[in-house]
């Protein structure tokens, strides 16, 4: 879909782009180093040949057991050129801090909050780094693979229910 954009990105950042390939279904993917993600994004947005003016989806993946443990996935789209590109950024567990791209795309604001809330990846330079889905009292990041599946953290005391066919209470494992 956007071989030209991928090629241009590789030429411009030979060090930052570690790998580039076309996945099944024709998606063009580039693996980018964590340190240079902001620079790469700024280039992709401002360059008239790529012109990615929209970042419709940013999410994270937890590959527990491998290094780097987390991976951020930036899906971007150009409304003027009508092409798409996907960036994958490995994030190590020891230092889960990435530069924010919210100053570039305002739409990235809640996606980055989502990644902080559910995966615990912090974004430097984000204007409002709060949880998105869970409440402020919540401890931990529930979509991490090492978070307990039923680790409920109730806000108010729950009534006792003696029902053998029901799932365990708030903190059941």
């Amino acid at each position, binding site marked *: 879909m956007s071989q030209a954009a991928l090629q241009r990105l590789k030429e411009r950042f030979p060090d930052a782009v570690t790998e580039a390939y076309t996945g099944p279904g024709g998606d063009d993917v580039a693996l980018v180093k964590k340190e240079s993600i902001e620079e790469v994004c700024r280039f992709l947005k401002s360059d008239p040949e790529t012109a990615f003016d929209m970042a419709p989806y940013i999410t994270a993946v937890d590959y527990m057991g491998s290094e780097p443990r987390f991976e951020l996935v930036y899906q971007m789209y150009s409304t003027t050129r009508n092409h798409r590109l996907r960036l994958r950024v490995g994030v190590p567990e020891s230092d889960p801090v990435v530069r924010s791209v919210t100053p570039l795309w305002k739409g990235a604001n809640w996606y980055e909050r989502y990644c902080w809330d559910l995966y615990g990846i912090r974004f430097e330079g984000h204007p409002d780094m709060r949880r998105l*889905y*869970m*409440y402020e009292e919540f401890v931990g990041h*529930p979509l991490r693979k090492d*978070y*307990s*599946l*039923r*680790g*409920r*953290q*109730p*806000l*108010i*005391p*729950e*009534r006792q*229910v003696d*029902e053998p*066919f*029901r*799932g*365990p*209470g*708030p903190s059941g494992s």
Partner: protein
Amino acid sequence: MSATSDLDLVPAIATRREDALSGLEKMVSKGLGWARKYSLFQYPFVTACCGMEFMAVAAARYDLDRFGAALPRFSPRQADLLMVVGTVNVKQAPILRRVYDSMADPKWVVAFGVCASSGGFYDNYATVQGIDRIIPVDVYIPGCPPRPEQVLDGIILLQQKIQDQPHKLIDREKPALPAKG
């Protein structure tokens, strides 16, 4: 409770006056129950997809109005039937508790759908495993979502329950203090 007098210790011997009074109370209770079961003002606490089915029940084809339970009040102060329709998660539980506490007595609660009844298949970090862990529930309606016929059946069951409950014209009992939260 006031201090116990000697009269309280005397074994209960029903006099004709007490007989007559309790008969009257029974009649009043029956009448009040009849009136209350046919004028259920409901507060729809709709959080999820079951709401669609709830609308179908309230609309013309199934017509909840036939049972006197059609008029939704969007203030808990004016409602006496709390319909919890859909998944309630941990973040919402204090809100549900607060809505329940703001309703005036007498009040009833219906758990609509399997998520409200038991958490359904959402046995995860975010979902309350049945709203009866938060507030007492009178009728559970299973189904994902329940058929409108099931809902009507649940409403009829609730009406029977209300009719069988004792009702008083004036209740001098102190209401239970609302839970914190």
